[in-house]
């Protein structure tokens, strides 16, 4: 069943339930009102009968005609009252009982008439009068009491019915809401997981799609997308390669055209004005040509590294050793640049599985950048650290000029450089290498204070280390 229908049905169900309870309560109320009305009428009638009975007794005692007249008056009043409210009465006690009441009154009235006619000399009639009077009294007493009792019953009954209904509605609302939302949340989680794994390039599918609701169709749609992506993965990768090739060629061309232009201008002038140049000038220009060729060579080499970054030769290694090796490569440069070096190696670092040369290359790139950022000199601290959750960290921290926040999103892009003779490839190559090692690299920087690059690499063979300790 669709979620939409589930929600709709349970909503209708609850509404119908509430309406039913309302009708029930209304009916109860009407019953109670009718019964109360009856009790009221019967109280009035009762009073009038009491008066009748008193007149009856008075007549039997004093034999005065005026009591008989009184009784007739009362009977008439009562009859009128009964006829006026006969609907109300019959609704409560039924037509039969109403007839019974009428017949009692008739009987009473007849007996009184007979007593009146006989002049009160027949003791048999007096006994009959008493009997009929008693019947009337009992009738009213019983009926009134019964109806009062019924009113009480209805009210207490309604009370418990309403209370139980209230509990039912509450229960339904909570349980239905819970079931529906739980189902939605659980399915959404599943879908989220699926989407995330697809985003990571793992074209997984949810195999058993049981629910036939909207979420089920969403899962089916994602499954289809996943299939499609997997089928077209090759195409996409090719397209990506082409796109980055486009970016790459444009970037390389830009990087190469400036030194090329310099060499070209120097050569044109040298050819044209050779005789007008001093020997020193010629030497200086040739040196410049050599420098520019080097610059071009660097661009090309970086480019090769960039394209090679994928085929890493992974070997188990200790990060501290790798960092130490790259420091050996850089020591001279740093000393020349008037940079103070601070090294902090954590001992018992978990081992990693990496391509040593590539990690060394990353370190060299970061250190070169750091030294370039601290032109008059500064402090470079390099630290290794064991993180929680099987991670190893390398921090490269400088006290250089820092990176303006607006450049931060771009520094890892290929060919992004703020240096007049930079290639802009160092960080993008480093990024590619670290990502290839399933690691992370990020930067924190404050302009005028310094920059810290952090490399996070997954530890390897942690289980082995634990075993060793046991």
């Amino acid at each position: 069943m669709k979620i939409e229908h589930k929600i709709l049905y349970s909503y209708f169900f609850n509404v119908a339930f509430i309406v039913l309870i309302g009708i029930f309560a209304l009916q109860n109320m009407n019953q109670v009102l009718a019964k109360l009305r009856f009790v009221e009428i019967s109280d009035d009638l009762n009073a009038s009968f009491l008066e009748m009975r008193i007149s009856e007794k008075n007549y039997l005692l004093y034999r005065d005609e005026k009591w008989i007249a009184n009784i007739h008056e009362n009977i008439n009043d009562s009859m009128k009252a009964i006829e006026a409210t006969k609907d109300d009465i019959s609704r409560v006690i039924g037509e039969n009982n109403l007839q019974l009441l009428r017949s009692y009154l008739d009987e009473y009235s007849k007996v009184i008439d007979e007593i009146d006619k006989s002049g009160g000399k027949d003791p048999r009639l007096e006994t009959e009068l008493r009997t009929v009077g008693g019947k009337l009294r009992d009738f009213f007493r019983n009926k009134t009491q019964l109806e009062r009792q019924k009113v009480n019953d209805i009210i207490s009954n309604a009370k418990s019915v309403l209370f139980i209904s209230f509990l039912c509605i509450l229960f339904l609302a909570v349980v239905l809401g819970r079931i529906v939302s739980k189902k939605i949340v659980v399915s959404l989680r599943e879908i989220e997981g699926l989407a995330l794994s697809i985003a990571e390039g793992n074209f997984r599918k949810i195999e058993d799609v049981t629910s036939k609701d909207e979420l089920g169709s969403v899962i089916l749609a994602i499954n289809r997308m996943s299939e499609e992506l997997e089928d077209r993965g090759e195409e996409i990768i090719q397209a990506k390669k082409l796109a980055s090739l486009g970016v790459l060629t444009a970037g390389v061309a830009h990087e190469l055209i400036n030194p090329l232009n310099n060499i070209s201008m120097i050569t044109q002038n040298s050819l044209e004005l050779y005789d007008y140049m001093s020997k020193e000038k010629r030497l200086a220009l040739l040196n410049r040509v050599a420098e520019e060729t080097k610059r071009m060579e660097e661009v090309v080499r970086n480019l090769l590294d960039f394209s090679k970054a994928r085929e890493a030769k992974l070997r188990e290694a200790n990060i501290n050793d790798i960092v130490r090796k790259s420091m050996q490569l850089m020591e001279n440069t740093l000393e020349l640049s008037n940079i103070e070096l601070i090294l902090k190696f954590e001992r018992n670092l978990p081992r990693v599985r990496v391509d040593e040369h590539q990690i060394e290359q990353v370190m060299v790139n970061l250190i070169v950048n750091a030294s370039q950022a601290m032109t008059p000199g500064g402090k470079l601290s390099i630290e290794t650290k064991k993180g929680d959750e099987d991670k190893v960290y390398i921090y490269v921290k400088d006290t250089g000029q820092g990176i303006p926040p607006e450049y931060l999103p771009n520094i890892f892009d290929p060919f992004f450089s703020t240096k007049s003779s930079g290639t802009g490839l160092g960080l993008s190559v480093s990024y590619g290498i670290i990502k290839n090692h399933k690691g992370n690299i990020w930067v924190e920087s404050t302009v005028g204070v310094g920059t810290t690059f952090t490399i996070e690499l997954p530890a390897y063979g942690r289980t082995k280390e634990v075993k060793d300790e046991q």
Partner: protein
Amino acid sequence: MSNKIMVVDDEKIVVDMAKMALEHDGYVVETFLSGESALARLKEETFDVVVTDFKMKGIDGMEVLRTVKEQYPKTKVIMITAFANLDTAIEALRGDVFDFFPKPVKIKELKASIERALEK
């Protein structure tokens, strides 16, 4: 009276080479390494031709062109770009550039262009 030429590029070797070639032909040449310093100098001195690189940090060639055309309409501007892509070319032409050269610059062509600029 010899003609005054301004050369602007953020690479020193470029302006040096241009200066060397142009001075040999008898021009008076001043060189600047940024758009900012070039525009500052233009306030003091009138130049016949400005040769400027397109891509520079800060004030770039396009802005130099715009300022020159606004404030010194008689001065001719020649633009040098790494790549003559269509957008930059159109933009420069709209800005009334006199000529437009891609890198690597052929110095002879540049000289010819400057000559033409001075004839007009």
